[in-house]
């Protein structure tokens, strides 16, 4: 075990670009975690490929942070296995596991300078594996350069902006040559503009260093933009694992459909291979779906509109508003079915009140 960890340390003396180790793959198998009687994770299984940037996405209480802490070794599952490159990671302590952790609030050491923060992981190694002062310093300066903060090495964390602190936290995690990078809501405490910049920056860094990276977020936009694959979680279970396109275009469950992107839900009935709203059949091709009550989901912008066309959802416009580059209409679709929101081009002024019909272009049916 010791040999494996120390394997990850090889100091380039004068090379410009750091040679990162081959990334590891992470396998989570039937992991369960209970806090007292409350289950936080119900038998989660997930395979993370080497070098992948993967997002754990879900609302608070979905278990995403618990899963991350288990990967980090800060929490221990009640059952299940975690493998790093096929090797049992649960047998390793936090220290031995060699993961790079970045917290939402950065958790920088406030009494150390930026350089000391970055070098911390190297300076606390046992003497036999500890690089000397100069090597630690040079390594920290290289990483500072990598995160584009050259010149700030003597600052204290309190003298940095939120975005700069985040980068320092990132460099500090990279300094220990982590086998896996784990980021807990990495941009959660930043304002929208900085957040967008840092997202792009993180993607670039990831592509250069190639670490297997897992980040937790409740922000779907962040997950879809940044991740190679998104793991959508809810109430301690994985709802869907897929590329951003897959989870957005082919949501596996009503939860995923409504959690990612905007959606409308209309209660319907399936009979004789058709979808019915009351006595009106919808002009939508249903495959092999069993009869009975069902829920029809579609996106506000994925619709065709018409004037009371047959085979479409009929509604009355209750409100219209301008929303950035588009115009949104709220429709009352009657009889306790609630309302439906549709999104149209901003120059749509054809009708802003009265009756209108909506036919989903793309949709999904869940029983």
């Amino acid at each position, binding site marked *: 075990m010791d040999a494996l960890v120390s394997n990850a340390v090889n100091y380039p003396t004068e090379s410009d670009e750091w040679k990162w180790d081959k990334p590891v793959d992470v396998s989570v198998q039937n992991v369960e975690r209970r806090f007292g009687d409350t289950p936080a994770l119900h038998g989660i299984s997930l395979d993370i490929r080497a070098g992948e940037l993967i997002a754990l996405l879900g609302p608070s209480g979905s278990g995403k942070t618990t899963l991350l802490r288990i990967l980090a070794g800060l929490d221990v599952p009640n059952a299940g296995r975690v493998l790093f490159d096929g090797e049992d990671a649960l047998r390793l302590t936090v220290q031995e596991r060699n993961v790079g952790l970045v*917290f939402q609030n950065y958790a920088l050491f406030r009494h150390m300078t930026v350089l000391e923060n970055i070098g911390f992981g190297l300076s606390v190694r046992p003497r036999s594996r500890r690089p000397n002062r100069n090597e630690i310093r040079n390594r920290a300066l290289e990483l500072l350069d990598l995160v584009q903060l050259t010149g700030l090495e003597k600052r204290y964390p309190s*003298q940095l902006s939120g975005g700069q602190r985040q980068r320092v936290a990132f460099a500090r995690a990279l300094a220990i040559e982590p086998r896996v990078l784990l980021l807990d809501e990495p941009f959660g405490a930043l304002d929208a503009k900085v957040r967008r910049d840092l997202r792009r920056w993180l993607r670039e860094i990831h592509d250069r260093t190639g670490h297997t990276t897992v980040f937790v977020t409740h922000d779907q936009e962040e997950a879809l933009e940044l991740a190679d694959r998104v793991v959508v979680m809810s109430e301690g279970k994985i709802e869907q694992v897929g590329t951003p396109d897959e989870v957005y275009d082919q949501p596996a469950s009503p939860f995923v459909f409504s959690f990612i992107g905007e959606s409308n839900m209309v209660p319907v009935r399936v009979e004789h291979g058709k979808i019915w709203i009351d006595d009106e059949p919808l002009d939508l091709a249903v495959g092999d779906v069993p009869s009975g009550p069902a829920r029809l989901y579609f996106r506000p912008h994925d619709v065709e509109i018409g004037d009371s066309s047959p085979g479409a959802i009929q509604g009355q416009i209750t409100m219209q508003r301008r929303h950035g580059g588009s115009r949104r209409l709220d429709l009352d679709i009657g009889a306790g079915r609630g309302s439906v929101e549709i999104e149209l081009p901003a120059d749509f002024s054809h009708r802003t009140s009265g009756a209108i019909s909506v036919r989903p272009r793309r949709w999904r049916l869940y029983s």
Partner: protein
Amino acid sequence: MSEAAIAPLLGSENRGAIVTTERWPVRALLIGVAVVFLLLFLLLPLLAVLVEAFRAGLGAYFRAITEPDALAAVRLTLLVAAIAVPANIVFGLAAAWAIAKFEFKGKSILNSLIDLPFSVSPVIAGLIYVLLFGAQGYFGPYLQSQGIQIVFALPGIVLATIFVTVPFVARELVPLMQEQGTQDEEASLSLGASGWKTFFRVTLPNVKWALLYGVILCNARAMGEFGAVSVVSGHIRGKTNTMPLHVEILYNEYNFAAAFAVASLLALLALVTLFIKVALEWRYAEQISASRRH
């Protein structure tokens, strides 16, 4: 333009005034009250101690403080502080760590128990130890048969002092550690630091100013404690008299000059600790403000 428009409303002398600043009479009154209070209740008594101490002349002053009984009292006081303060640091850190970083049953009880010495009269604190370890106490006869003396000896004085000073370090640390949470420690562990390294390189530096402040307060109390120590000490001159007890004995013997001379030493010790605190704060101002802001 806007200033000209507002000026008639405010009256000319108020132009450019900041709304949250008081008018000068109010300011003068507030500052005056504070200054008079400090003079009357802090500086004047301190001066009185010094004046009385030197009333009989420099020679008498030095005789009083170099007299064997006085020196014994100084030694005992320093010894008691030297034992009680480190004990308090260890206890304070352990208790604050437990309360701030762990969830366990009885946590709120521990938290309020720490304050107990603040609410119990020091005399009672002393009596507890007499009751436990005195000749007629629960463990007294057994301890006596083993040749161990606690009450009317150094161990009793140390115990009473520790009891009285228990809250000082813990009370400074608990709120700070609670506010700081456990993320810094988790970060340190994940970076490969062992538990001890994490404690010495992350946890301790994070609380060092609060710890120092607690130590200074604790030390001042340990050296100045009267009530609890008075009960357990037995007032044996040159043996179990701490400085405050020595001052009282001299005073009761109408030896005012000597009493005030020793009292001035106590006051000096207090001033020295205060000076150390100010000097440290001045020397490390940047670090302190950094640790507060972040």
